């Protein structure tokens, strides 16, 4: 039985209201407890002075590209990148090829993740078969095969009746549905509808593409009683609608992608394809509204919305380039910026990356209670580093944050007590 003592770090465990400098003891891959624990004799001591010791991060949306697009990335390559980003649990959307609409695909993903051994991967099951929005999927079977939730990852269903049935069925399976509200008709384009898209002549997606779909979702959630989670909200107005729904007691939660907290449509500049993302980068006002919604707690989680690409995917005119950002390794430092910009206490911010996403997924993770799996992230909150695409562990080097100096560097990541990442200099 291997016993590890993590010594002298500032342990932040938002789920248990803990924030103090102390030791953390691990035995056989599980948390034993906090403090010096006199009868605990460690085989290994990890010095964590000056570091934050928190639960491993839980990322609610990361494309791993496997199965189907292994030329871009694999479960092994991206779970290693996740470890480098302090992330120990990844949710992968069901839009793989084949789609995660049957237990075999879900099991394949989990098996590959276990073989890689760098992070836990929780597949999101498809809400409808082949994600075509016609026939509901075998949600119960998907759940048994390890899908914590079911979802429709890219745009909303066109057919309101299918949507209602899917919600009803998910509710009766006691499953949360993951939704990304985007009206299938208004949602065609590649940039936020506003002055920037007008100037550049880019096909535009209006804010109403998100809010109309969200309004329909909320009404059907109210009618069916399903628990729902909104993925990667992009507009301030949508956050206000979710806040209002939460105030009325609807069982809804939301996340935003870290890049939406820092970039807006102006960053597209002269057609920078690295800023081509879906949902699109919206106005400065939206960006600020999203930050406030995270600070207020309306938006409970920050995800990476990681989408690794090969170089060619971005080497094209803007609208022909593929959307997405490689975000696993910038998730934590980008999120940490809210502590300064929006005066968020660090434990609250860490909750948005650990305990809250765990609660949204209804999984027993994201906390440091005795007996919990020792999934940990040790990071230096003061260390500055400059983003260099060539030094990312992800196979996708597509980041618009190249050259940004970020604060907060992961020094070590543990998965079930095993070190799966250690910063070379540490």
């Amino acid at each position: 039985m291997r016993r590890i003592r993590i010594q002298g770090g500032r342990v932040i465990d938002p789920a248990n209201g803990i924030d103090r400098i102390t030791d953390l003891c691990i035995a056989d891959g599980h948390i034993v407890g906090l403090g010096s624990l006199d009868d605990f004799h460690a085989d290994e001591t990890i010095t964590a002075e000056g570091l934050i010791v928190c639960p491993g991060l839980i990322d609610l949306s990361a494309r791993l590209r496997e199965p189907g697009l292994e030329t871009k990335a694999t479960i092994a390559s991206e779970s290693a990148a996740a470890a480098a980003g302090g992330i120990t649990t990844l949710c992968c959307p069901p839009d793989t090829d084949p789609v995660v609409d049957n237990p075999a695909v879900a099991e394949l993903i989990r098996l590959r993740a276990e073989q890689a051994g760098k992070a836990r991967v929780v597949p999101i099951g498809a809400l409808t078969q082949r994600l075509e929005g016609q026939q509901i999927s075998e949600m119960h079977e998907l759940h048994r095969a390890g899908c914590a939730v079911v979802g429709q990852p890219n745009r909303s269903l066109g057919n309101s009746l299918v949507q209602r049935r899917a919600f009803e069925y998910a509710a009766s399976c006691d499953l949360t549905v993951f939704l990304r509200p985007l009206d299938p008709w208004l949602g065609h384009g590649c940039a936020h509808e506003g002055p920037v898209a007008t100037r550049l002549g880019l096909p535009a997606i209006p804010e109403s593409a998100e809010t109309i779909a969200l309004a329909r979702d909320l009404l059907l959630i109210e009618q069916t009683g399903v628990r729902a989670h909104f993925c990667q909200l992009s507009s301030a107005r949508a956050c206000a609608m979710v806040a209002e729904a939460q105030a009325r007691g609807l069982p809804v939660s939301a996340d935003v992608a870290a890049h939406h907290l820092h970039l807006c449509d102006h960053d597209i500049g002269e057609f920078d394809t690295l800023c081509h993302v879906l949902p699109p980068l919206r106005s400065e006002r939206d960006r600020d509204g999203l930050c406030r919604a995270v600070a207020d707690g309306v938006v409970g989680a920050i995800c990476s919305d990681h989408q690794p690409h090969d170089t060619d995917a971005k080497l094209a005119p803007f609208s022909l380039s593929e959307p997405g950002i490689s975000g696993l390794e910038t998730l934590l430092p980008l999120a940490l910026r809210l502590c300064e910009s929006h005066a968020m206490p660090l434990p609250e911010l860490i909750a948005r990356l650990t305990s809250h996403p765990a609660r949204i997924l209804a999984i027993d993770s994201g906390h440091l209670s005795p007996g919990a799996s020792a999934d940990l992230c040790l990071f230096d909150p003061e260390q500055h580093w400059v983003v260099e695409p060539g030094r990312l562990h992800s196979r996708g080097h597509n980041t618009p944050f190249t050259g940004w100096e970020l604060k907060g560097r992961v020094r070590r990541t543990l998965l079930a007590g095993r070190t799966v990442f250690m910063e070379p200099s540490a």
Partner: protein
Amino acid sequence: MSLRRQNPQLDSEGRLRHFLSIEGLGRTILTEILDTAESFAGVGSQQVKKVPLLRGKTIVNLFFEASTRTRTTFELAAKRLSADVLNINIASSAAVKGESLLDMLHNLEAMQSDLFVVRHSESGAAHFIARHVAPHVSVINAGDGRHAHPTQAMLDMFTIRRHKGDFGQLRVAIVGDIMHSRVARSQIHALTTLGTAEVRVVAPATLLPTAVEQLGVHVFHDLAEGLRDCDVVIGLRLQRERMEGALLPSEEEFFERYGLTERALAHARPDAIVMHPGPINRGVEIDSAVADGPQAVILEQVTLGIAVRMAVMSMVLGRPPGAEQGETT
């Protein structure tokens, strides 16, 4: 916090290296283009319609979208400057499937091309190509998606200047499908940069992009009001496919409300000129009586377009060597 961006169109001496969009270019350069065009305007009427300025240069017309007029005038302009011209038409995108756009460009570069004249159906294509060409190659945008068509805008400015002189006194109305028009966007930038007193756009809301007023124009939905006291009236081509997608009810209704007829034109100043980038749809956006009438300068635009394209080509290729690198602005 983001990195400082280069002005991709200028070299380290502030001279025109690529011509991609009007936006980002100052009044001085636009005026220089017009003045240079003026010096070329007579070449077409000489016995020998050629000047030897670009002898030995290779210009590739790279058209990913069908075009007759623009490609032809670029070809004529290049030939009148004594350059060698290669026309490559890749109208169907299927043709480039096997080979990536960049591979194709690098192959053409390897053939020692000096200038690419590019038309593409996607906004930003010319910027993309300019960003990836070798340092000795220049790029002229001959139309990219809905974004820009800067040589068309400059030939329009040239036509206006020849007829009206000082932009500071002018009221200009652009009528029709602004939403899908790269010509309109470039015209608006050119007109505002040259100090036009008032630029108006006249169209139903379905054909206007969001926040178009932030480009510095006044928006009108009524044609008579929009044309009132204008010195210049510019019609835009209305693509037939715009009748789909619930943008307009019918060509007839569009012509009734926004067609440039003699009756509508009566609201403009009596000496107003009528322009159109062509090809025109008679009876859709413009009435034959106006298109062929005394105020129309549509064919003159085509002629002047050659001089403007000669001007831009000679400016981007006529720079002294050693100034290829872009400059941070």
